[in-house]
């Protein structure tokens, strides 16, 4: 039974790892800060969740297992709130999100001089 659990835990950890790779790939490939935040919050959270679950299954005691799940929960809250904080700050700094309609507008178009 313990051996089976150890195998199951290792399998969960192995399944979780590719999500970190995919998250990092998204960080490199996605076009702007907002899209990159998507990759970081969602893929990494899922990867960490699977790894923590895998470690919790293999943990020696219930308290240790609970600790792994707690780590995941805190990371979930932190990454989710952090993503909105970064996105809101980027927006306030004037970085417009890149959309297919305006593929090259990394920054807002320069303001035309207004006649006084």
């Amino acid at each position: 039974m313990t051996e089976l659990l150890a195998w199951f835990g290792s399998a969960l950890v192995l399944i979780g790892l590719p999500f970190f790779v995919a998250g990092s790939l998204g960080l490199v490939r996605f076009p702007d800060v907002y899209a990159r935040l998507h990759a970081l919050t969602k893929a990494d959270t899922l990867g960490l969740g699977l790894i923590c679950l895998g470690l919790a299954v293999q943990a020696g005691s219930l308290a240790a297992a609970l600790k792994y799940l707690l780590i995941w929960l805190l990371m979930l809250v932190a990454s989710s709130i952090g993503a909105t904080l970064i996105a809101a700050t980027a927006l306030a700094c004037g970085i417009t999100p890149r959309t297919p309609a305006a593929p090259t507008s990394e920054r807002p178009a320069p303001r035309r001089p207004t006649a006084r």
Partner: protein
Amino acid sequence: MTGRRWQAWAWRLTALALLWWALSAGDPRAWAWGLPVIVVTAGLMPPPGAWRWRLLAALTFLPHALWLSLRGGLQVAGLACRRQLALDTRVIEYPWQQLPEGPARLFMASLLNLVPGTLTLRLSQDALHVHVLHYQDDTPGSLRRLERRIARLYGVAQHREASP
């Protein structure tokens, strides 16, 4: 009134004790430090407000949130690994329909970051500005469904619908 206060204290002490037990990995010697810390923390925690999760709704909500997070991770991982990056990225404004101002809105704004394809850009008085990584026709509908679920979680659905 005092009964409710005692109940709140009992909940806090139990939750904090459980937390300490997990943090100290069940080491019995750690309770010498833990007990005073738990009592002081319980005393410093803000009093329970009117905003509270409904227990039954929370029990059904938790698996749903985990499922959404799983799908979110899978979707973004799939998009990142695709050979051709074809993203239909948009910024949409989602007008609030049920949730009144307060913690419920903040909760939805934070949860959206874990849900497939959405990222909260800004919270405003009457709308939520959402960055959608890959737009689908169902996106506004899924936001509405999520808001309805959160309204039920906080128990605000009925009286808001009764008085639009």
